[in-house]
């Protein structure tokens, strides 16, 4: 019964999520430029402005970005000037320096050479690249020529969703060259790397849709609550007594379904509210806790919830415990969500849908539990075996988790 997801080793690797940066980022993203100039594209070139006095060398890469502009596909292609010099010769006077004049004089050759090495193909045939402008930009490793072009495809659909891309620039002269592609579609970014072994690649943008992503993350949330036994056991430990009521130091069955439901409702709502808050705060980078601490506290919360059933301290206000410990569980969810990898353009969507998935998973547990527990509430079996025995079992299990996580020991055979 070992946990399927591994959050055991050491500190969270999310120190980069510093709150002020993320705030600025979000502000920036929602302020406006996101829709037309999308983030990854910007970030690809973010280090340009750090231009070094002496440029470091890296292997040869070119960067292609495709996006929809009005009713066209627009491309921007950044190609290193030194690569072009090697491929077609730009340094006319052989002085080791490329001036704007030399580059400009070769614009036509560059465009013809490059655009013939990048082709889009749909089911209707090859599309045609139309050059619109040629500029210059500085990357961290030197100057790049910028080609902007429109892609004109045959057939009715001017913005095809399913197509092949064929990239072959420089592969004949430098097999270690790579073409780094990013396609921006409806606020999402798809990236890919072209290499001599992968010159032709197939793309299906329908897979990138909003709904698809929504359901993917929702499913991840459901899956997570199902494989996260600690969350289930915590919830169960809090729910077990909800069909009973504590009177004169004894458990007695509740009179009606309404009061059992109310008690369950309180616990579940409090838990949900609390973990949603910390899940969001952690994913958005406002708070970070070491994962070992979080995982240990989660185990401790399960112990406390279960022990409270055996030696009740907190009698009516279990929702308070659900809320307080729910805050800790939220951090656990956050680390799972970040392990999956969050598309940054749709951080909030994935956050929301993951959380929704967690709630659905939780509801399923409650719906399975409540009717049976309600039915059995008067029996001795429920009161002794299920409540007390179950709580003892949960306590032991959670204690083992706690020791494993807090002291970094392995008790379960793996």
């Amino acid at each position: 019964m070992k946990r399927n997801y591994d959050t055991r080793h050491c500190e969270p690797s999310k120190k980069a999520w510093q709150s002020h940066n993320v705030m600025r980022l979000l502000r920036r993203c929602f302020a406006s430029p996101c829709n037309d100039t999308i983030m990854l594209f910007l970030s690809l070139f973010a280090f340009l402005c750090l231009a070094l006095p002496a440029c470091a060398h890296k292997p040869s890469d070119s960067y292609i970005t495709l996006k929809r502009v009005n009713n066209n596909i627009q491309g921007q292609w950044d190609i290193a000037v030194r690569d072009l010099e090697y491929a077609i010769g730009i340094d006319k006077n052989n002085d080791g320096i490329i001036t704007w004049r030399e580059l400009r004089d070769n614009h036509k050759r560059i465009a013809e050479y490059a655009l013939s090495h990048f082709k889009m193909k749909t089911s209707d045939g090859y599309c045609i690249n139309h050059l619109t402008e040629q500029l210059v930009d500085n990357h961290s490793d030197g100057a790049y020529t910028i080609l902007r072009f429109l892609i004109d495809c045959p057939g009715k659909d001017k913005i095809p969703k399913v197509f092949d891309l064929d990239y072959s620039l420089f592969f004949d002269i430098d097999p270690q060259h790579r073409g780094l592609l990013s396609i921006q579609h409806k606020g999402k970014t798809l990236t890919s790397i072209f290499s001599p072994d992968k010159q032709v690649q197939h793309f299906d943008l329908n897979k990138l849709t909003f709904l698809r992503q929504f359901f993917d993350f929702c499913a991840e949330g459901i899956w997570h609550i199902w494989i996260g036994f600690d969350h289930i056991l915590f919830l169960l430990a809090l729910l077990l007594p909800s069909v009973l009521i504590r009177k004169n130091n004894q458990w007695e069955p509740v009179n009606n379904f309404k009061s059992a439901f109310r008690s369950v409702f309180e616990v579940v709502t409090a838990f949900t509210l609390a973990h949603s808050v910390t899940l969001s705060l952690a994913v958005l980078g406002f708070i970070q806790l070491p994962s070992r601490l979080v995982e240990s506290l989660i185990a401790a919360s399960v112990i406390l919830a279960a022990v409270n059933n055996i030696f009740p301290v907190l009698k009516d206000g279990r929702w308070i415990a659900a809320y307080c410990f729910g805050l800790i569980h939220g951090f656990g969810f956050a680390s799972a969500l970040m392990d999956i990898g969050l598309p940054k353009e749709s951080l909030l969507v994935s956050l929301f849908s993951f959380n929704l998935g967690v709630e659905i998973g939780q509801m399923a547990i409650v719906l399975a539990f409540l009717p049976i527990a309600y039915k059995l509430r008067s029996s001795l079996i429920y009161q002794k075996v299920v409540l007390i025995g179950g709580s003892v079992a949960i306590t032991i299990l959670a204690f083992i988790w706690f020791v494993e996580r807090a002291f970094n020991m392995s008790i379960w055979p793996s």
Partner: protein
Amino acid sequence: MKKIIVLFLLFILQIKSGSYAKPYLPQNDSQIIERLSTKVGGNPSAEVRNLRSEIGKNPKDLKLALKIAKRFIELSRIESDPRYLGYAESVISNWLKMEAIPPEILVLHATIRQSNHDFDGALKDLDKALKEDETNSQAWLTKATILQTQGAYVEAKRSCVPLLRLSDELTTISCISSAASLNGDALKSYNTLKSVVEKSKDAPVQERLWAITVLAEIAARRGEDKLAENHFKEALSIGYDNYTLSAYSDFLLKKHKAEEVVSLLSDKTRIDNLLLRLALAKKILNASDLSKHIKDLQSRFIASHLRGDNVHQREEAIFELKLKNNSSRALELARKNWKIQRESLDAKIFLESAIACGDKASAKQVVEFIEKNKLENVELTKLVQKVKP
């Protein structure tokens, strides 16, 4: 997870850099867009163009291709520009498609693959080459170097043995001592190599440089700091080599001699490994330009991630641990790096990251490796003691 980290590095970089660069249209015809050489006054473009046109005219001339590919590999070292490795590969690509690839081509291909940390691929090339031509001394030597990098010391020593009859004494003994010193015979290796170095004053500079660097490294590992320092200085006085410079910088950093590292490396910021050492020294000195170096390194690691390279994993692990204080990321990188290379530095960063993370158990494989190989290294021994339960 990796993807998300890359994305976030991009964010941070982008935000910290303050503004975005924008493509622009230069206004002045004489504006310099790019300098092709990084050396002052250097201009490889004419030479490179000649080489290309030469091979273009005689694309099937094996001798010419070998000469040009060798020159490109050399240029990649001189200019510290990995692009030349790609050019070299393209020059020999016709032969690589053949059924029976000439052994010399295989050896060059192995060298290119080695530079890209494709060690297994390189070993396959070398074995094929040696099957064709057992007397290719370069193939044996490169094979020994790669095996040593992978921590296979017994096999590495075995690969040095044929050099006894194929190469000179200094090369052979450097090869064997280098591997044997990591495999329980540090002092013996040191003494043997030292006596050979002393009587090989007329050997080629590159060979002597290598031999003396090996001596310096053995002495440093054994904690003989004075000896090590002398050997490093001697090596750097007879020639220039990035590897030696980097090893000497590590030695100086260990001794907290940060100022010396700065004066050695301040003009070497183009080379990632050396920039990292410079930044580590600046950190010790609390220098104001540390943040700029960190930014530069970050941008290089990101560029490397974007194309899916693993060449910088060890350096990135050191960067994350010592300059970004991100021990978990460092451990993750060190662990991945350990699967590819197992030099003392790789063991060191793995152990250090594991200790910083409080995840000592994860370093078990490194401890076992060190014990199994009887690796003598005072620095590692101390770390191992900290890790052991």
